């Protein structure tokens, strides 16, 4: 279990209220939050200051959450930052989260098609349960 104290978390969500909620949870566990409203802004923020972990919403206008994820994992410097997906119904996001994280065949197909050999560390479903979110972050924080 990683020590959460003072860790920097990037929260990517198009909805300010969701960011507000998650940063309140993180604050209660002495973590620091920076936020971005879409994929483009998220990439900019990562370049400004490398976060310890990223919490990413998949349903966003502009660049999709998955688009940002793929960009991140293509970049040598940032590809090791753990990413936790936070999302509502996975079917509507157009991404099969379970397959993405647990299905080996899917990963191999994805690698073949996109050249990206990476998957998110985990996903937490909306509505976000604070205890579950913290427990998940703890598993992946360096």
């Amino acid at each position, binding site marked *: 279990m990683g020590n959460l104290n003072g860790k920097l978390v990037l929260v990517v969500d198009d*909805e300010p209220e969701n960011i507000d909620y998650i940063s*309140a949870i993180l604050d209660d566990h002495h973590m620091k939050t920076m936020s971005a409203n879409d994929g483009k802004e998220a990439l900019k923020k990562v370049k400004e200051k490398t976060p310890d972990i990223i919490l990413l919403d998949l*349903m966003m206008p502009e660049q999709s959450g998955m688009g940002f994820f793929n960009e991140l994992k293509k970049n040598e410097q940032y590809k090791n930052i753990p990413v936790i997906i936070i999302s509502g*119904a996975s*079917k509507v996001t157009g991404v099969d989260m379970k397959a993405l994280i647990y299905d080996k065949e899917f990963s191999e197909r994805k690698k073949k098609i996109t050249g990206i050999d990476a998957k998110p560390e985990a996903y937490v479903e909306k*509505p976000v349960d604070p205890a579950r979110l913290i427990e998940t972050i703890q598993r992946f924080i360096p």
Partner: protein
Amino acid sequence: MEKDDSQRWGQQLSQRNILLRVTKAINSNRDLPDLLNFIVKTGAEMLDAEAGSLLLREEDILRFEVAYGEKRGEVKKFIVPLGSGIAGSVAVSGRSTVVNEAGEGSGIFKDIDNKTGFITRNLLCVPLQVDERIVGVLEVLNRRNRDGFDEEDVSLVEGFASQAAVAIERAQLVERRIQAERLEAIGRTVAGLSHCIKNITNALKGGEYIVDKGFRDGNMEAVLRGWRMTKSACERIQDLVLDMLTLSKKREPEYEECDPCLIAAEVAQLIETKARGRNVRVLITSDKEIGMVRVDRKGIFRCLMNLVSNAIDACNDREGIVRIETFPVGEGRSFGFRVTDNGEGIKEENRKKLFHEFFSTKGSKGTGLGLSVTHSIISEHGGSIRCDSEVGKGSTFTVELPTGW
């Protein structure tokens, strides 16, 4: 007793005519239950018989679907195993069977007679067959005015049955497709709804968490912020329910006399705060020539509100300008609203899906119901809605409605 030739010819001719009429009727579009009733009734009437029944094949059984005659109410529920009794044997062999002396050992499924009180004197059973597939059997029972069924009866009913079988198979296919589409639609609705509800619940939980934390930290500003979040989530639930109800039933608009320019003005006034927060200017142009109209005022207000609210969202923090215009169409029989923005525009592929339920490009904020509802209300009025858009330049939604006079 021999019939004379002219009588026989006359009868054949009228039977051929029946067959022609029946073929036409079968091939008109009807749903399955209606079609089956028609087939069994016609089959019995064709041969001047007392009763008839139709059984459809389901894997290794035949199920009585419809019956014609006095006892039809009682015979419907039976199931016959394939190969059992006359119907069961015909369904296996594919060969028509006539029994003119029904008694012990005739193969007639006595159970059914015993249960219904119907006494089968004679019986003609033909397969309902399409190519090699036997979809069921048709039975005609108790020929009136004669001792039993003859060769001609068999060939007449066989001719009819082969047409009927094709029609049944087609109706079954249609029914299965409708069923599948219905299930798919339910699935889509449930997925879309659960997504909306998860997002709203997230906001509710978020509000609750922030209020709690605010109290713990003695931070009244946070308490207020969390409380606002909770309240807006409640409003979203209310809107979602209203949208779902509007979409779920075909309702009659509640027409009342009103001024469309006033509706536009009210919308602009109500949306003012949201527009200012996004740095968007809302401009109104009203053509007073329209005068008073008869529409569902609340419904049209909701449509216009949806369109203007979308237009503001589309401006996405650029120097946004949203125009609301009301204008007369034709010679005063219709009028229109036009909502134009200089926002980001709608991609061609998204434009096609604009009015689909649960389609949204707004991320977790959108329910994907606003434009479906708008479309549905406008259709109820016998009006139309059109979208013109260019990516990077903006979009225009044009609504045209009858004045209702």
